[in-house]
């Protein structure tokens, strides 16, 4: 899932300083799971902004709503009635959600309440780690299920660099060397020979090269 974190309340307040009434929109997708922009976080932010503004003698009216997902037009359309009389929309979704809102509500000031950080998962409740770099052509079958693109600090694709020490990456003793992990796992699986197979350079044209990417599935299109 997408992992995001809330911006400082002061920064969000500054984006809507000239507004009297705002709509805060949470997202029940990824950011609910990573506890950054779900229903609860939306209420907490609304309350914080109200308190702040009341102290400044400039009260702020808030409306809150949590969309099923902000990255699907049908759920964004459900906001139509709520947006009419607000001066701004504060999105607590990832950057995708913010853009969907901005696209639909063209005459509204739409601002992000979160910083979208990475895609990954949780290790324990309250701790998330980056796991995938969205390279466009997954190679995990060749690397023992460990992604060298995002978990190797240098995204090296052919084994560790000279900075790999006692299983740790040279950037920090708290960061595992991805290639040590890959080697250990392939060894345990009895598949070290796979690491010796010749690999052509990775085709980066499937990644960010060439502008924003698209995925199309004609078979599921309704019209």
């Amino acid at each position, binding site marked *: 899932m997408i992992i995001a974190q809330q911006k*400082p*309340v*002061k920064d969000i*307040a500054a984006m809507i300083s000239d507004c009297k009434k705002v709509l805060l929109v949470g997202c029940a997708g990824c950011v609910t799971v990573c506890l950054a922009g779900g229903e*609860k976080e939306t*209420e*907490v932010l609304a*309350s*914080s902004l*109200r*308190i*702040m503004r*009341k*102290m400044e*003698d400039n009260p702020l009216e808030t409306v809150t709503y949590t969309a099923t997902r902000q990255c699907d037009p049908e759920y964004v359309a459900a906001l139509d009635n709520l947006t009419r009389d607000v001066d701004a929309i504060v999105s607590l979704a990832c950057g995708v959600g913010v853009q969907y809102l901005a696209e639909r509500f063209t005459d509204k000031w739409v601002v992000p309440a979160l910083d979208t950080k990475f895609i990954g998962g949780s290790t324990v409740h309250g701790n998330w780690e980056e796991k995938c770099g969205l390279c466009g052509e997954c190679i995990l079958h060749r690397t023992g299920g460990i992604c060298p693109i995002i978990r190797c600090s240098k995204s090296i694709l052919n084994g560790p660099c000279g900075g790999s020490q006692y299983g740790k990456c040279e950037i920090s003793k708290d960061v595992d060397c991805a290639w040590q992990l890959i080697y250990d796992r392939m060894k345990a699986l009895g598949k070290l020979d796979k690491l010796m197979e010749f690999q052509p350079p990775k085709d980066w044209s499937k990644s960010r090269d060439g502008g924003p990417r698209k995925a199309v599935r004609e078979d599921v299109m309704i019209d």
Partner: protein
Amino acid sequence: MQYAPTVRIVEMPCSGTIDHRVLLQTFEDGADGVFVAGCMEGDCHFLKGNFRAKKRVRQVKKILDEIGFGGDRLDFFNLSAAQGQRFAEIVKEMTERVLQLGPNPLNKKAKKEGGAA
């Protein structure tokens, strides 16, 4: 047990049921100070409720500091049901702290608005 008449007690089944939203709401509703009393460490019937409450209170204090309201108006204490004396002390301590901080700044604003109307 005697304690200052300055507090209003809201009973909860366990301090662990406290929520960030409820704490912020109390201040929006005009509370000058709030404290959450949880069982002694190791004595929570739900095992970790008091530890969780303490962490949530800490987080809300952080938010209150961040927005300039002041986290000092909120605190967490551990005490058992048998410590009436300690409860009275905490009430006194919080009351004194709040007296020093003055009324909830949101109340001052509300009064001003009311006065003008």
